[in-house]
């Protein structure tokens, strides 16, 4: 069962005196769903994910935070102070940091997660194989992690988190180094996953999330400026040019204005369902 997530009036400021990374941020993510967190660099996307997983308050205990976060009916004020893995999983923007570097093969790297969680050893192999197949990584099972390409590393890093079946999965820029085939595979994995896991995905390019997310949140300098459904997001898209790379999409939306009997079907084919 996917975890519910309710964030209320969350403010977070690092102890170095810089302005708040998040200001009075509220968000309710219905289950099951996939929520895209968009915004320029420094808007607070990554801070939000690290607050939710618990690593930020754990490692920056002297930072200033207010508000509350409720994950799966457990309330944290202002945010979890311990890492909540495997209830909450986080894939990092830099996949190289996510891998342990101490394992000889992709299979044993992914198995390491389950070993550390104390999973019954006889269950581990099957679970690892299932995850590797789902992510199209099975043929890489015996490769050394340090011989993988950038895109392959990104998928293996995701596998090390997904194998633990988190109820809330946070993904920081999961599609950046993936070719379109790998992106399509990830999209279909996420569409299935959405049924049992609540997903929060940050992205700087909107192509990927337009096809998987059903909620859209836009952050600017720590403030939430838009939190809406996909239809509303598309309606606001032309105004978001200074925050998101939407020029091309804006032109596409102009085509939509020229209504023809087939327009809606064209947009369905483009992923605007």
């Amino acid at each position: 069962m996917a975890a519910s997530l309710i964030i209320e009036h969350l403010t977070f400021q690092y102890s170095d005196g810089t302005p708040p990374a998040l200001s009075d941020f509220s968000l309710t993510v219905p289950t099951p769903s996939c929520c895209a967190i968009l915004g320029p660099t420094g808007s607070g996307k990554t801070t939000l994910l690290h607050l939710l997983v618990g690593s930020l308050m754990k490692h920056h205990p002297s930072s200033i935070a207010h508000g509350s976060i409720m994950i799966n009916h457990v309330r944290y004020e202002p945010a979890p102070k311990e890492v909540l893995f495997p209830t909450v999983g986080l894939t990092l923007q830099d996949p190289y940091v996510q891998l342990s570097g101490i394992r000889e093969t992709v299979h044993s790297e992914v198995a390491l997660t389950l070993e550390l969680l104390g999973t019954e050893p006889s269950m581990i192999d099957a679970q690892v194989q299932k995850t590797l197949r789902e992510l199209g990584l099975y043929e890489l099972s015996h490769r050394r992690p340090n011989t993988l390409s950038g895109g392959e590393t990104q998928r293996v890093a995701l596998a090390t988190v997904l194998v633990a079946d988190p109820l809330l999965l946070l993904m920081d820029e999961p599609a950046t180094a993936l070719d379109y085939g790998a992106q399509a595979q990830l999209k279909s994995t996420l569409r299935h996953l959405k049924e049992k896991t609540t997903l929060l995905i940050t992205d700087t390019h909107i192509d990927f999330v337009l096809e998987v997310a059903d909620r859209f949140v836009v952050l600017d300098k720590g403030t939430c400026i838009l939190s809406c459904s996909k239809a509303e997001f598309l309606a606001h898209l032309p105004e978001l040019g200074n925050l998101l790379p939407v020029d091309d999409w804006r032109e596409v939306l102009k085509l939509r204005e020229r209504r023809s009997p087939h327009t809606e079907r064209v947009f369905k084919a483009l992923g605007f369902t």
Partner: protein
Amino acid sequence: MSIMVQNLSFSYSTDRKILKDVSLTIAPGEFLLIVGRNGVGKSTFLKLLNGIRKPTSGKVLIDGMDTRENSVASLARKICVTFQNPADQIFAPTVFDEVSFAPRNLKRTDPESIAQKALQLCGLEHHKTSHPYDLPPAERKLLTIASAVASDATYLAFDEPSAGLSSIEQNLLEHVITSLLAEGKGLLVVSHDLPFFFRYATRVVVLENGSLSFSGHAEELMEREGILRRAGLRLPPLVRAKRIISAMEKKREVGGDDVVTL
């Protein structure tokens, strides 16, 4: 004056050939976009250009300098490669030290002002005294690009430079690319981001199973759907929208009304 890749083959081990008999040339002022699926050998190809890796057979000549016979350090005056993962190359304690390392080390005239100009071009001058790891990932990526710019090498090669950049940094990257091309630098970019780079690339090559399956203009590539699919590329949204609309109009003319997908 050019990069000449002649019958280049490369393997890391005997059982897996990465590149097979690849030949191409790049002249200063050209922008070569190198595309292909994850793991196909694009990044390895860049490492063969600056001599970090040596050909298993065939050769690479950078303005006549054979990479098999010249050190990485001596090739660095001619060609500078940035890695996909900034952490693989950043080492200095401040942003300015990082960017001024290449011009100082390569004994360029007035390295400080070269570094300063590169930081300005990449929108990083306000981070001059910051530690590189205090920068957000997108700006760290721009930092590696600024370091390459400051090397003032004739050829600059960037591995996935647009990955993880938001619209602000993408605008900066566009500005960097157009400035470098105007200066007559030769640019090589490895990327999956066809929608971003197709406007600037003078030529695109597709790497598939170790060989070049396509070499030509981006517009030409966008017509070759089979190659695009196999290379893991997607058309820019606007091109895709227009194609779907025209395909549907054609279908309507002949009486069909199925939704067309691309």
